[in-house]
């Protein structure tokens, strides 16, 4: 039984490569390709030999990129009270720990009799950065603006995941910010180039 030959015809694509005589000679086009790659090689080699960097790689963690986005969600900051007492703004309400989808925040509350307005304070406030997904929901959930995220991520990588728990002291002190009106990045106009 004869079958329909048309069903087996190869599909023609709109971007089917069409080779001219020059391309079918193989060699000139291959030489052109080799010239392109060796030009990149020579350029990068010349850069390395004259003491410049001939690669696009950021050699992390020895090197840091300076051009992190200003709204990048990086390491957390616990803000301090604006009265200069050095106490955390956090009232240990557990809303960030509740909303956290990765369940990385652990808070242990304590009673502070010296401050009748804010009697509930965190005794421990720890974030497990080996599991944190940097979604920023904790920042959204906080009613007191006590937790923020900075664009930088210093000292997060570690060779042991048990070293990646970061506690209250470091979160308060690595880049101290007090509870004043949140500084939003300035609105950039389209014509200004943005980031």
């Amino acid at each position: 039984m004869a079958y329909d030959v048309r069903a087996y015809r190869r599909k023609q694509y709109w971007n089917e490569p069409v080779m001219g005589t020059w391309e079918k000679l193989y060699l000139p086009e291959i030489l052109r390709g080799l010239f392109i790659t060796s030009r990149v090689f020579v350029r990068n080699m010349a850069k390395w030999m004259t003491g410049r960097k001939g690669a696009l790689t950021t050699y992390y963690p020895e090197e840091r990129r300076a051009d992190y986005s200003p709204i990048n969600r990086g390491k957390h900051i616990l803000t301090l009270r604006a009265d200069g007492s050095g106490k955390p703004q956090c009232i240990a309400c557990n809303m960030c720990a509740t909303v956290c989808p990765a369940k990385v925040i652990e808070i242990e509350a304590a009673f502070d009799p010296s401050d009748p307005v804010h009697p509930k304070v965190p005794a421990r406030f720890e974030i497990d950065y080996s599991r944190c997904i940097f979604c920023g929901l904790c920042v959204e959930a906080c009613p007191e603006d006590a937790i923020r995220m900075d664009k930088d991520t210093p000292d997060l990588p570690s060779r042991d995941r048990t070293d990646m728990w970061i506690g209250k002291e470091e979160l308060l002190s690595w880049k101290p910010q007090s509870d004043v009106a949140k500084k939003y990045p300035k609105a950039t106009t389209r014509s200004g180039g943005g980031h």
Partner: protein
Amino acid sequence: MSPDLAITLVYVGYALAVLLTFGAVLTWVERKQAALMSDRIGANRAYLRIPFTQVKLIWLGLFHGMADGLKLLLKEDFKPITYDKLGYALGPWLAFTPVVLVFAVIPFGGTLDPGRLFPGLADWFGGRTYPMQIAQLDAGLLIVFAFSGLTIIGAMLAGWSSSNKFSLLGALRAGSQMISYELVLALTVLGLILIYGTLDLISIVQQQSGTVLGFLPAWGIVLQPFAATLFLTAAIAENKRIPFDLPEAESELIAGYFTEYSAMKMGLFMFAEFIEIAIVAALFTTLFLGGYNLPWMTDAGFVFPWGATVELSHGAVVLIQMVTFLAKVFLVCSFQILIRWSLPRFRYDQVLMFAWKFMFPLALANLIVTAVAVWLIKGGA
């Protein structure tokens, strides 16, 4: 110990040292060159720490090869249940040994006169001179093809004995591809044999020491540029490297004929491949780039076409010739790596089509043109 034996042992030691060094260094060169060609840094985390200090020697990642070797040595030698014991054990060695043996007939320097180099031993050597080649054979080129043909058996045996269909497919591909390209390889060299009238590699290199047209070095690539291109292409295909790496195409066959090999047996296949890069480069240098010859250099020194001469001592000449050979080999190796990181892989039918419908007729045409030209130059009949 006779002086002949002593010299041969020195040559063998030198050849082994050169080949193993090239095999080890080329892994590093390949990584770094590929990185530079694609705007990357390349492997640079492995280091040697000087004991009792915090001084870490990184040296541009040179120790990654050592780390790889150590890892391969310490890995578990994992085998499939139903493998063929003899073939499985022989495979890597049959792929590795012939590659190294090819170097026995490649001249890596000019003529050595040990009596002049070491005057204290002049009596022992009795004025004898030694061409710098391990085995002085009239049929050197035949030996090259005989040994490089043996590597097919290694690949086929490895693929068949590991009882895995990916391995078998890879072995079949390796077999058909290598046999096809071996034909092209031999045909391209035939043109050179017609010109030089000999199979002896030393004689071939010596005939490349003069000049043509008064200033161009009489290298094979000047006399047979077409054959040189075909030879390098076929040699890369013979070595099963990209763009001809169908036998071990990772995306299709995992690792081809050595899929089921692990630990140092797999390392031997990889090492054989890297040494074969150096061997292909050495062959190309010998046949087409004038071997150890520098342009306008003789055994006594330089004689420039504009009349100037530079006298050199025997030791200096020997050293320059050896370094020249190594430098040329290294440059050709680097060129092969450039090709490997520039071109995409063929489809399998394209590989065989390319060999039989494109390169084979071209090699034949090259042979015919060369034969007619040689006949005309020698005065016709």
